[in-house]
């Protein structure tokens, strides 16, 4: 009996120790500093690092520590061909339910956030995951998922809990990998591939919840779900659109069948407020996106909204809709940022969000109460103005029409998935923005509308310019913005701010640039060719590093 108890106790301790060796909740709750353990670095979404070894006085000395290019696919399976670019010929571990044929041998474009935990980097592209030694960039392992197909538009990164990594696949599986070896522990189906769901989101780990989202460009309903980190079993699933009679929000649709097929997909990670246990995230466009069948009559809740869901129960606490009855595929999925600051002279807990539709919002994050709306793109013309609750009011004349509507933003949006950032030093919110116009022609005149994103032809015209834009959360007004030189523009990539009074971002010409976050003054740059994710920073052996992806390569910079 005593022995048995002792054995049990030992076993329990061993489990506890094993879990403690990897990623813990305590580590995830820390403000962003030495490591980068989750999509935005920490739960706030601010992408503000407390590190200041690299700062305004020495950033001009920043120098390349290493760079590594990566090859996707099953190439190294079975210890075949060695890596040409420092891959070191590590074997590729192959998993998956499909043949892998659909993915082809396409090029690598790293859009993911890269996790940095202790001395290792972990990242993903569609169907592929890697572990890399943070000191020299050499591959430790590579995992390849043989896909059944699906939209291979990007992968936003991995989640980590204990010694396990979590990856979403375009054909709708959640795959759990051993972080040390890259070997698969299990995979579970998270959405129905037959319904044309695809999964790109970086899983977000909160306590014993793995939060996963999916995308869909047919008419299928969006949802956020929570999965058990040990088994992948479903803990709860929250639909963004009404699924049955009596569901809240159904009154904002013309009929139940349309609501049940109403889109609102969840494809970019949100932020988490440990104090209230609220996971705060954005939802995508209603479906059909561009046509207006009678079933869409109303605001179409909870599409194009910022939503707060209790991670323990999966129940919605509050919502704020940023595009009521959207007709331009204006996802509101862009990561919201949680800020404790002052508003009207009083301390306030807030959430800041710049939407694809060209409007910026400050909300109270405990209640969802609207505080501020600002328009951050001069070109935006799809709305008539703001209603009493600060929501942009759609101008139906700017819907897609047979004769054509001149609309800004274009489908790419005034902003899109590239992560925004915030600096408590300046009180400013930073977002890449683009003033682009397109003609929207309605091609589906059937009153039943089209399916998904169909029924319209969008002919892109031109961008009048694109910017790194800084917004004052207290007023919603643009505090400063830096226009990228040239006659046109394109949306730039995501942003990092640091306590070294620095802002790092890729521009639209392939440069990685350090700016003064107070005014946009340029302090340092290097030309990489195609900055494809948001820069990150961390500490390794007492030195601060800056990490960024450019296409198929990672670049690591430091001071010597």
């Amino acid at each position: 009996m005593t022995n048995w108890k002792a054995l049990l106790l030992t076993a329990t301790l061993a489990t506890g120790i094993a879990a403690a060796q990897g990623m813990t909740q305590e580590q995830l709750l820390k403000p962003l500093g030495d490591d980068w353990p989750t999509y935005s670095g920490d739960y706030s979404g601010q992408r503000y690092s407390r590190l200041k070894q690299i700062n305004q006085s020495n950033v001009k000395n920043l120098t390349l520590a290493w760079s590594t290019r990566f090859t996707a696919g099953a190439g190294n399976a079975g210890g075949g061909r060695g890596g040409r670019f420092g891959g070191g010929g590590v074997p590729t571990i192959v998993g998956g339910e499909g043949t892998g044929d659909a993915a082809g041998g396409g090029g690598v474009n790293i859009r993911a956030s890269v996790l940095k935990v202790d001395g290792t980097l972990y990242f993903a592209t569609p169907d592929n995951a890697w572990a890399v030694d943070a000191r020299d960039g050499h591959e430790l392992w590579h995992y390849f998922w043989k896909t059944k197909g699906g939209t291979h538009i990007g992968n936003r990164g991995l989640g980590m809990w204990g010694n396990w990594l979590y990856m979403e696949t375009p054909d709708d599986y959640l795959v759990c990998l051993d972080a040390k070896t890259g070997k698969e522990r299990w995979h579970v189906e998270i959405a129905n591939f037959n319904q044309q769901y695809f999964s790109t989101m970086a899983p977000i780990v909160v306590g014993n919840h793995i939060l996963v989202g999916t995308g869909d460009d047919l008419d299928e309903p969006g949802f956020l779900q929570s999965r058990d980190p040990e088994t992948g079993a479903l803990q709860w699933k929250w639909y963004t659109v009404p699924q049955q009679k009596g569901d809240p929000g159904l009154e904002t649709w013309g009929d139940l069948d349309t609501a049940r097929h109403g889109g609102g997909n969840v494809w970019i990670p949100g932020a988490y407020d440990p104090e209230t246990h609220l996971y705060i995230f954005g939802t995508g466009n209603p479906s059909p996106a561009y046509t207006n069948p009678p079933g869409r009559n109303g605001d179409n809740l909870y599409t194009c909204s910022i939503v707060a869901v209790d991670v323990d129960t999966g129940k919605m606490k509050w919502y704020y809709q940023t595009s009521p009855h959207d007709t331009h595929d204006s996802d509101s999925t862009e990561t919201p940022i949680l800020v404790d600051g002052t508003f009207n002279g009083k301390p306030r807990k807030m959430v800041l969000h710049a939407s694809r539709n060209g409007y910026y919002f400050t909300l109270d994050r405990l209640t969802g109460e609207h505080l501020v709306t600002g328009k951050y793109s001069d070109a935006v013309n799809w709305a008539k103005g703001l209603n009493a609750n600060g929501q942009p009011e759609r101008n139906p004349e700017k819907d897609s029409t047979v004769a054509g509507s001149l609309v800004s933003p274009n489908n790419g949006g005034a902003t899109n998935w590239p992560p925004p950032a915030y600096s408590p030093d300046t009180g400013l919110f930073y977002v890449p923005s683009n003033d682009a116009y397109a003609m929207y022609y309605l091609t589906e005149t059937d009153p039943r509308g089209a399916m998904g994103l169909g029924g319209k032809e969008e002919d892109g015209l031109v961008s009048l310019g694109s910017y790194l834009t800084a917004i004052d959360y207290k007023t919603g007004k643009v505090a400063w913005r830096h226009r990228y030189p040239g006659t046109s523009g394109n949306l730039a990539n995501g942003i990092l701010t640091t306590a070294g009074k620095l802002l790092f971002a890729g521009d639209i010409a392939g440069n990685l640039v350090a700016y003064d976050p107070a005014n946009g003054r340029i302090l340092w740059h290097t030309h990489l060719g195609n900055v494809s994710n948001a820069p990150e920073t961390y500490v390794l052996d007492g030195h601060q590093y800056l990490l960024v992806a450019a296409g198929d390569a990672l670049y690591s910079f430091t001071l010597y």
Partner: protein
Amino acid sequence: MLKTTRVFLPLLFGATLILAQAPQSPPPQAGRGGRGGGGGGFANAYPQHAAGDPAAIDRGKAIYGVQCAFCHGSDARGGEGGPNLLRSELVLNDQKGELIAPVVQNGRIDAGMPKFPLTNAQIEDIAAFVHSFRVGGYDISRNRPPTILVGDAKAGQSYFQQKCASCHSVTGDLKGIGLKFEDPKQLQNYFLIPGGGRGGFGGGAPSNIPPTTVTVTSASGQKLEGRLNRIDDFIVIFTQADGTQRSVRRDGDTPKIEIHDPLKPHKDLLPEYTDKNIHDLTAYLVTVK
């Protein structure tokens, strides 16, 4: 021309599909739209039912027409009270009628669907018909609207006199402009941004847009000029009149850079236009023979 267009469109849409969520493509020059498209790109990435036996599809179509079409529409996209079947989870998961049969044979009484005394074989045929439709979220249209011409040509002419005539003339550079496009949509996109806004069907745009040029003035007052190749915050690259390429380093406001964009007047109009102005101009320009 038509043939070229047909080849070109899927390629274009393939590229734009990526652009929609992926701002890291090169800066847009022209003609990039958002998502959309005629069956290219991701629409091919999802399971579609294998082509069924044509005889079974025909039999299924006949039974569907009699028994199902009134409620679910002759194209299965929904009708009088019945939902769109193509996007239904049950239909998408069904292979040969095995999931559809219980619903048809038992009905969904609370949802208003009666029972149908059809055999499994008949339902298999119906399933073959329903599965013969391609399912995707990117289908541009099945019913192409006849024309985009809704504007008032007279109002368009007066707008032209007011806003365009200082640079253009319908008897000079724009002579016969109305004959140069097969689809008025192309003409419309073309005058909004020449070289941009591709789309529509038929013949391409005549394009003789002068190049963007740059004047670079050094601190000492020396001027260099040429066709702009590339500019960012750190370098400007241009081709001089003699064909040589120059690259000049930029440090803030030094040297002084002036960009001459021939499309600037067109761009300046974008925030100004009403859609009626645009439609009126199109209605006018198609009459310019």
